[in-house]
């Protein structure tokens, strides 16, 4: 199987894209381009007939769709088809919000069991349709704020193990500045590969380690 292209030219050229079935941690400070990276990846994955499960912890599903539209990324055609959203944010402000055909509304950041069950079920539905599945966590930082880090590590270990067994690729983004070095180190240890992003002098750069074609020095993202 060819690698999963991110849709970012220099990244794909230098790294060959992401290996399927791996767990990626996407690190970066605010404005380092994590969201842009993820949105492009989602666009590329969907246009290559993959299925994407998008876990949201810091914005609502309608805000996410608006952000895709604002970047002229055509997402609406995939909603409820190959693109499903697990919204773990909206009920914090709107407790009465209910599911629709493309977004499942979860109970909030503390209910990791609810998230785990919803993720297992959504992945199972796609896998039964013989789809290649990409799980995106946007982002892990919010789960780490509300829960004991040990609880989140155990959750990560469980869902990453299950995803690998099922052949699912997982990417979770982490806001580096929000966590202590020991938390960042543990998350690195729980991942197969690490993508680091940074913003410097108005330009964005990346490194990639833990894959077949590593990029260990920061290179500019086109």
């Amino acid at each position, binding site marked *: 199987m060819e690698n999963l292209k991110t849709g970012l030219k220099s990244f794909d050229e230098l790294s060959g894209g992401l290996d399927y079935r791996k767990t990626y941690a996407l690190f970066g400070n605010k404005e380092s381009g994590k969201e842009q990276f993820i949105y492009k990846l989602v666009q590329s994955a969907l246009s290559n007939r993959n299925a994407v499960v998008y876990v949201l912890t810091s914005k609502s599903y309608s805000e996410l769709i608006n952000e895709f539209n604002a970047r002229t990324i055509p997402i609406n055609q995939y909603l409820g088809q190959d693109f499903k959203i697990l919204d773990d944010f909206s*009920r*914090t402000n709107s407790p009465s919000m209910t599911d629709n055909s493309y977004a499942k509304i979860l109970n909030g950041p503390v209910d990791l069991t609810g998230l785990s069950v919803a993720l297992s079920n959504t992945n199972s539905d796609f896998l039964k349709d013989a789809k290649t599945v990409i799980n995106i966590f946007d982002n892990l930082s919010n789960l780490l704020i*509300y829960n004991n880090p040990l609880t989140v590590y155990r959750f990560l270990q469980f869902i990453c193990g299950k995803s690998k067994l099922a052949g699912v690729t997982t990417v979770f983004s982490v806001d580096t500045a929000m966590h202590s070095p020991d938390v960042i180190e543990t998350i690195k240890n729980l991942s197969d590969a690490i993508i680091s992003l940074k913003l410097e002098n108005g330009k964005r750069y990346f490194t990639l380690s833990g894959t077949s074609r590593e990029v260990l020095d920061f290179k500019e993202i086109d």
Partner: protein
Amino acid sequence: MVEYKGLDGLPEEIDPYFGIAKLDEQLKGIPSKKIVLISASPSVGNEVFGYQIISKNVNSNVKTVVFLNRTSPQSYLTEMKEYDLPSNNNLVIIDAYSGITGIKSDETDHVRVIDNPYDKEEVKSKIVSELKKGYGLLVIDSLSLLIDFFDFDYVNSLVAAIKKSIEENDSAAVFLFTDWGYEKESLQKLSSNSNSTIEIKGIEKRVIFGQYFAVLNCDWLESKQGFSAVLFKAMKPGGIKVYFPKILVTGPTDAGKSSFIHSASKNAVSVDKLGGTIALDHGNVDFEGYRADLFGTPGQERFDPLLKMLGGEAIGVFLVVDSTKPEQFPRAIEMLRKTETYGLPVVVVANKSDLEGALGKEEIREKLHLDSNITLIQTFAQDLSKVDPNEPTKLKEAGIHEALSALFKQLT
């Protein structure tokens, strides 16, 4: 007292109860002073068990208190509603969640707020003092989150305090717990502090293709025999339904197999031509907390090569016969053999019992050479004047329910 009705339709007074088919039959509810631990795998979850237990009890006038640290009270009640498991004023929620998010909820007659959910003593004293107000049932949702917030030592001391309190106040307790892979020794201690442990797991490889619950132990029943794993589905709406994945409906041509499936199911489909089923019928049955998938076979002999395939993995059979056509009875027995379901639990449905020339129950039993332990149920058209030979006939509910009840009892 709750009036629980099982498959027999006979009320039993058990209080409080699970409101979940099979669990109440096996455990006879949750006696007062007892603690039940419901331990789930993280990919299956147990929250719907909690919603159902709460909904069934508060709607049977059992005063219930839920300690909630998993989500907000409003969100919890929304979820219950989505599963069609409504709450009412008999429910009081101890809110240990809002303090985590910083969005404080207001204390009302039905919501008690824990100001600091990270304060071990406040958590313990709020639960214990609330129990003194006289509740039939306490639900903790979730115990594993308490372990994650604090530790096993604290949770064991909390369980001990709850045990003492429910003994003093004649309550019962249900703890919802997710097993994230904690140490075995700690889990054993937790389990030993409970009077019954129910395990919920998924049957999974790459995907989840089934889920089941099983009673691992229960100290208030004398007989320790008969606990077995039970497949279930969590239906939204509908809640927890004991699930039979494949029940075969077979019998000779035009006996009324499609009529039986369409009358028993909410959403049956047939692949047919001019009234005769030429491939198969399928329907989902939802009855008294049980859910079953019915698969009907075509009756014509030219489709016999299909029968073996359709019978594969069936766990029970309805054998439908036309009460007015005893000449087809040998064919009916032959079909049981061809579907390779001979020997499985079977209920014989004697259809068209309201037509002229229909044989009586005993005559049918004799001509089919039925053992005395095989149940035979008669079914009748709802309205004979509306029978259309090209469409499945709607059958009277009483016969359908009697047949479903008879087979489901044999399967559980």
